């Protein structure tokens, strides 16, 4: 039986489509730049002038113009949307909360991890492995998923999260460390003495 070798297809790292479809995506300009950098042959093949005129083949010029105008509009829209989303992401923050369980024991609750766009369960598992403690994903009052880690590991957890953030280029996301029970208790004590 003769084996047929699989065809290897290059995919655009930006929009994940084969490069020839980049022009229909939402990030055409970035795709183009990426292709030029990484595969110049194909770039020239796709975007040289001679080829562009070829593509017009079956559609009338008017139609083609309309098509490209529509696409451009859409691309601009999508880009604005993506930018907004990124800004929103950078605005959000991750909260590491240290909750007192009894006098010497603590639980760490991490909320706001959605920005990472990673499987929370997987992150949870890495935490559990790293600290050799129990770790769960739980829904909080707002209906978002929190990671709960048994043990007082907030500093270490912060380091790991920072690493993950830099990997994804979200360095600017703030991480806040909160000590939950103690503050409340102090406040309660203060109000009582007053």
């Amino acid at each position, binding site marked *: 039986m*003769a084996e047929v070798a*699989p065809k290897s*297809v290059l995919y655009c790292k930006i929009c994940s489509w084969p490069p020839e479809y980049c022009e229909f995506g939402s990030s055409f300009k970035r795709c183009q730049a990426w292709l030029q950098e990484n595969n110049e042959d194909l770039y020239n093949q796709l975007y040289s002038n001679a080829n562009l005129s070829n593509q017009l083949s*079956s559609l009338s010029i008017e139609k083609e113009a309309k098509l490209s105008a529509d696409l451009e509009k859409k691309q601009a829209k999508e880009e604005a949307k993506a930018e907004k989303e990124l800004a929103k992401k950078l605005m959000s923050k991750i909260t590491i909360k240290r909750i007192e369980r009894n006098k010497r024991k603590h639980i760490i609750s991490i909320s706001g991890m959605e920005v990472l766009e990673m499987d929370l369960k997987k992150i949870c598992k890495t935490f559990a492995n790293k600290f050799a403690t129990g770790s769960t994903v739980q829904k909080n009052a707002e209906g978002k998923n929190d990671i709960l880690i048994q043990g007082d590991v907030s500093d270490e957890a912060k380091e790991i999260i920072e690493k993950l953030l830099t990997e994804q280029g979200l360095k600017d996301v703030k991480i806040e460390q909160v000590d939950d029970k103690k503050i409340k208790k102090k406040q309660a004590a203060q109000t009582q003495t007053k």
Partner: protein
Amino acid sequence: MFKKFSKEEIHSRSNIKSSVQRGLKANFVSLYPNIEQAIDLVIPKKSQVILIKCEDKIQLYSVDKSDEDGENREIVMFQHFNDDLVPTLTTIHKFPEAFPRVQVDRGAIKFVLGGANIMCPGLTSPGAKLPDENIEEGKIVTVYAEGKEHALAVGKLLMSTDDIKSKNKGHGVELIHYLGDGLWNYHD
């Protein structure tokens, strides 16, 4: 089918038995005879296939990826309830000759990438291509585009290609899976 698809819709994943795996391969070959020579490359003999069951009776089959590209598992085909097995676009890109193909004109690309069903005129206009021999209704076809090399979608014929040519009206292909949909963007 996969316009909206995310990890939340996955119910369970399980390894399938090697005998079931063999059956799956036989089934796939019987649907697409041309892939017979390459079936061991789609699903290698020693590999473990994982069946991922999802919402709405969608079943995905994933295998170990042969090339090193970060992610190590890849979905090669999927099935809805008891319908025909459908190869994913990554599989189609690797073995383009193995599947029946239709071609749409340039004007239709935009809509196809948005997930729309393909209308007959988009399949019969000068830029489009239909195979000479008839393909029956309900068969799975891969969708190509004018001036492009790679497939951009997979769909199910809503009428036979002969009917598409003669009637030239209405929905011709029901789009199942296309570039940029939930399944395409899904990674393990």
